[in-house]
């Protein structure tokens, strides 16, 4: 399928876009502003999810000294923190991919960070269950 070359925006080459944006999101045309804002809110929802994981990781280490043995506590905290970091970076990547799809009118990419979040949370929950059952 040949994509027709996109016409320049009405005001000619878009001087309002930063060089950074030009490099990350080349080509295409600005989508409906409401889609751009919706994409931004979705990114923020993912970021808050990753922040909840980061907060969980910090909380496990800070407040569960009497609950979990040390290696498990540290392992769980690091697992949650790493998951939160991956998700933070992944949400920016997803925002970029969605924005690129919007610009060129392509279907939206599947969220790879969804399965990542589910798997990570399942592992963390399994660890907690194992500790509680075996304790």
């Amino acid at each position, binding site marked *: 399928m040949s994509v027709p070359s996109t016409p320049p*925006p*009405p005001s000619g080459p*878009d001087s*309002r*876009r*930063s060089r*950074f*944006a030009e490099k*990350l*999101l080349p080509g295409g045309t*600005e989508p*409906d*502003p*409401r889609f*751009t*804002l*919706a*994409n*931004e*809110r979705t*990114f*923020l*929802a993912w*970021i*808050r999810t*990753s*922040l*909840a994981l*980061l*907060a969980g*990781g*910090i*909380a496990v*280490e*800070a*407040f569960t000294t009497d609950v979990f043995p040390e290696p498990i506590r*540290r392992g769980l*905290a*690091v697992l949650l*923190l*790493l998951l*939160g*970091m991956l998700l*933070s*970076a992944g*949400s*920016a990547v997803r*925002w*970029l991919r969605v*924005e690129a799809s919007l610009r060129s009118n392509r279907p939206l990419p599947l969220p790879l960070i969804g399965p990542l979040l589910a798997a990570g949370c399942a592992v963390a929950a399994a660890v907690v269950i194992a500790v509680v059952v075996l304790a």
Partner: protein
Amino acid sequence: MDENPATAPLPGDGPLDGDPGLQPERTALAWGRTVLTLVAASAMSLRWLPDQGPFVLAMFGLTVAAGTGIYATQRRRYRRSVEGIRAGHLTPDTAAVFWTAGACVVLGALGVWLVLN
């Protein structure tokens, strides 16, 4: 005062935002919630203040600075969204997205360092 409240104009400068979906407001609120979550997440680390004082304070200060930066630009962000919707043309806020994601990654890395030390 005898106007129908359902159709009377809202107080203020007039119809600043012609979008019935209230997208600029929802987006600004989403940023606000994110700031609160960011600061709350890093505030958890204050538990280590007695042992790792300066490090924890620096970590908390970093997120407070990031949050302040977001809050300070809220009004500009809202206005930009409104004008973008009016003009039918809005450039994505690439820098804000990457700075925010970067701040979260750094917060996580500092957290890992704290846990392992």
